[in-house]
């Protein structure tokens, strides 16, 4: 299976996917860490994929989304954005709404 197919499969078969540097338990970049904090705060279940484990994945996800930086958040197959966008949406309450609209359970209210 090629990397693009692997990514496409992950994005489409999981409700919420975060491509990040490090793991949700141990982020290895401040930007990835911020998105992890927001998702954890909201109590959203998500799958974290560590791009530091695979150069193919790291390059592949940038090509897949045509987006040059990591982290990258996907909800129900849709690319939401990177750290700055996720933080802005969270602060405006839009991220919580996006999860609700997608039918993804959110545990905490901001």
């Amino acid at each position, binding site marked *: 299976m090629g990397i693009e197919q692997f990514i496409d499969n992950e994005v489409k078969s999981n409700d919420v996917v975060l491509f990040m540097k490090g793991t949700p338990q141990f982020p290895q970049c401040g930007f990835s860490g911020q998105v992890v904090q927001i998702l954890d705060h909201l109590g959203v279940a998500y799958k974290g994929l560590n791009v530091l484990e695979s150069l193919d994945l790291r390059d592949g996800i940038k090509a897949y989304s045509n987006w040059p*930086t990591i982290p990258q958040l996907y909800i129900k197959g849709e690319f939401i954005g990177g750290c700055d*966008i996720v933080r802005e949406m969270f602060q405006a309450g839009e991220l919580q709404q996006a999860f609700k609209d997608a039918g993804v359970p959110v545990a905490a209210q901001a």
Partner: protein
Amino acid sequence: MAMDAGEIERLIREGIPDAQVTIRDLAGDGNHYSATVLAPSFAGKTRVQQHQLVYNALKGNMGGVLHALALQTGTP
């Protein structure tokens, strides 16, 4: 390795002529910047599309030389 604030601003203005660009050096190390880019031409575009326009203006430097540019976009 790093890129100076003036160069970042110049590239963004060149790529998005109606943009108001504010760059801040977050850590004082010439390596961690934040950029606020406001442009009338962003109207009607999603945040992802707005960021994409800035990334395009930065001509491939984003994610490479500029790995730590915090970006905020909007309309004035």
